[in-house]
């Protein structure tokens, strides 16, 4: 018996100190919103791009100069208005007055200069190429870009927000996130939770919520059980496969909205077989994106059928004819490219070589794995044998860098707002493009630079047409954002912007 007593004593000595470190206790009637997220916030400093679900947390603490409404129209954020010169290179932003950061320091032109200065990841990554950024007066900032770009659309991204210069100390060390957002950071327990409290000095409409607690729950099934049991009030990024189950639960509301993300098959146009546009088109005709949405994604999302722009995006041309699934057409095109099934095994050959392709997908998305399997089955009908390789990011990036693959399944690339920045993926200067077409490069550059809105729309329409004609990638599904809340969460309105979580107007009522 004595041994057991000692054992239990030792055990409790070790356990109990750890146990007392639990998060702040929460009474259910308080205005405390608990949200389940899949990944923790690894960093709070603008030196680093916040990845995964961290961005949903950032969007409560930090704000951007330009904001988007729920349908992705640009609207004033921390800047009340902006104008540009005729060249489209020099942009002047007129800032909102009387805004204070969480630590009381005033928001002004210097804060903007700091936020897009040398430390910022957007500047370091050379995504935003600025010649200079200068304060004109206390509440006016002038950006001079290297070339004409639609700057306001860049400045909506939550990963490139306005942070206070006071978030670093005299030695240049980061001391904590200081933003202007409706909530401020109270506590973070690594791998467990992030506790935010209301910013009572918020310049805009103050939230009714006193606290927002982001709970880190890596496993999607656990998140769903936690939502069903009421352990959390809201779950973001609900997997498509869970939607039907949740919709049947009378305690839960599922919110859906089409986003800017589009899943696509990107071809390696630098080597056989996809250096031949006919083979790329054969794939496009073979894949039935309607059926993928209906059967694989439970009707969530819209079949893209080759359309590169989600319909919610600017300059999306709805009049362009899209691909219609046609396996005969697919076989015809393959035959024109020299591929025929001569030995009757169901797989087409050229010079005795069967058409067998390596399709890469990354491990992190089960949705993509299911999409890839559906594509594989559909391609097999057309006589193309696809080998799916599910790889971790590092391994996938290496094969991609070496060009050692035939096709990649990607989810939306370089998309955050309504502007079609993602067309840069097919620009030959992008090392992930695997496609070289000078006409395309020229169009993409002109479209971004041109100032006349009508001509801009025309150019972007031409780009969309070129993507349908040339098929550097076959766009499959326009993704829907799915967020589920318990019914006690009132006033939530889902926005098309991803990744951003809009909580203004949200409150709890049992």
């Amino acid at each position: 018996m004595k041994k057991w007593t000692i054992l239990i004593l030792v055990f409790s000595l070790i356990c109990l100190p750890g146990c007392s470190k639990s998060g702040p206790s929460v009474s259910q009637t308080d205005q405390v919103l608990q949200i389940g997220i899949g990944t923790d916030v690894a960093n709070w400093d603008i030196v680093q791009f916040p990845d995964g679900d961290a961005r949903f947390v950032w969007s409560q603490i930090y704000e951007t100069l330009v904001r988007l409404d729920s349908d992705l129209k640009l609207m004033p954020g921390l800047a009340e208005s902006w104008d540009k010169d005729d060249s489209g290179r020099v942009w002047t932003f007129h800032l909102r007055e009387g805004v204070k950061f969480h630590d009381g320091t005033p928001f002004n032109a210097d804060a903007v200069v700091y936020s897009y200065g040398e430390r910022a990841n957007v500047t370091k990554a050379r995504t935003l190429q600025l010649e200079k950024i200068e304060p004109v007066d206390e509440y006016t900032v002038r950006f001079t870009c290297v070339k004409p770009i639609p700057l306001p659309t860049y400045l909506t991204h939550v990963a490139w927000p306005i942070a206070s210069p006071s978030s670093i100390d005299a030695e240049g060390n980061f001391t904590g996130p200081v933003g202007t957002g409706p909530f401020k950071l109270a506590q973070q327990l690594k791998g467990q939770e992030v506790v935010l409290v209301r910013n009572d000095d918020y310049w805009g409409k103050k939230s009714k919520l006193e606290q927002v607690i982001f709970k880190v729950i890596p496993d999607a099934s656990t998140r769903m059980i936690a939502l069903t049991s009421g352990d959390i009030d809201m779950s973001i990024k609900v997997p498509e496969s869970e939607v039907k189950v949740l919709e049947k639960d009378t305690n839960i509301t599922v919110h859906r909205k089409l986003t800017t993300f589009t899943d696509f098959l990107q071809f390696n146009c630098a080597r056989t077989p996809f250096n031949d546009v006919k083979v790329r088109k054969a794939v496009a005709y073979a894949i039935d994106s309607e059926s993928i949405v209906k059967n694989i994604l439970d009707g969530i999302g819209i079949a893209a059928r080759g359309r590169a722009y989600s319909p919610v995006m600017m300059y999306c041309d709805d009049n362009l004819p899209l691909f219609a699934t046609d396996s005969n057409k697919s076989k015809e095109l393959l035959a024109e490219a020299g591929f025929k099934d001569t030995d009757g095994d169901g797989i087409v050959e050229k010079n005795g070589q069967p058409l067998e392709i390596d399709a890469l997908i990354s491990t992190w998305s089960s949705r993509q794995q299911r999409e890839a399997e559906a594509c594989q089955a559909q391609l097999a009908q057309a006589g193309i044998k696809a080998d799916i390789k599910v790889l971790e990011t590092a391994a996938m990036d290496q094969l991609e860098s070496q060009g050692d693959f035939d096709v990649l399944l990607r989810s939306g690339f370089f998309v955050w707002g309504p502007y079609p920045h993602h067309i840069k993926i097919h620009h030959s200067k992008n090392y992930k493009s695997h496609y070289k077409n000078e006409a395309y490069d020229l169009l993409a550059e002109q479209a971004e630079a041109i100032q006349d809105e009508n001509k801009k729309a025309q150019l972007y329409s031409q780009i969309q047409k070129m993507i349908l004609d040339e098929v550097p990638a076959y766009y499959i599904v326009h993704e829907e954002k799915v967020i589920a809340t318990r019914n006690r969460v009132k006033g939530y309105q889902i926005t098309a912007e991803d990744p951003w979580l809009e909580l203004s107007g949200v409150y709890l009522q049992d």
Partner: protein
Amino acid sequence: MFRYITRRLAALLIVALGVTFLTFFIMHLAPGDPAEMVALARYGQENLNRESIELIRQEEGLDKPLYLQYGRWLQHIIRGEWGNSLSTGEPVLKEIMVRFPATLQLTLAALVISLLISLPLGILAAVKHNTLADYFAMTLALLGVSIPAFWLGLLFMLLFSLILGWFPVYGYGTLRHLVLPALTLGCGMAAITTRLTRSSMLEVMEQEYVISARARGIKERDILTGHALKNAFIPVVTMLGIQAGHLLEGAVVIETVFAWPGLGKLLVDSIFARDFALIQGCVLFFAALVVMVNLLVDISYMYLDPRIRFEKEV
């Protein structure tokens, strides 16, 4: 005894050196460019370009030959500098220590639960050898080994949290949070320990000292607790040491399912991110832990079997 412990601790240095050396070079054999992965963590997938990747390669010294990179890490670690995580920028030792209490709790609780299940069950199976009780215990053990932990975890969660509402679905903090993950882990471990206890007991029960004790008319219960059990414990304790070592390295699946903030997920994430500073730090930390646990196991032999004395070995 003292000399033995010092010698074992000295061996720890060699183990640590060997393990970190191997990890470092094996990780570099894995596909993927560390500089690209660091760039990915800092700038995001879409903002990668060749220039910024090369800049990071130079800044972080990733362009240097591997032996120099390892040498530099070793130099720092000797000075007690664990370095900063390449992807988050946080000190490595801090990242580890934040999660260690959670891992330690889960490990100990799972060990206790597995012992509470496996010892009585194993002894019962041995004493009632080839009876219904034995078959029952062995069937349970078989189930325990075969059922995947994530599935069992989800089942427990559905039953005890969603339907009965006894325990929280996930998370870390109170003893109530600990129950389900520890139970899931403990059940899996108990399966192996039960079988081992049973076979070890069976073997010991046939030893001459047990037979002679029987001949002397000692009660069967006293033979069991006084003579057999302690001797049967040696392989069991060895097994527990190995299992504990594994657990301290983290039970990734359980940690993921129950959102338990332990070390296992930290290590796996750091491997995916090719975050060498963090990988090396974790591996070093685990090596030290495993050596310590095994040292404890060895010392416990002496208590279980007084014939074992370590001085004689020296």
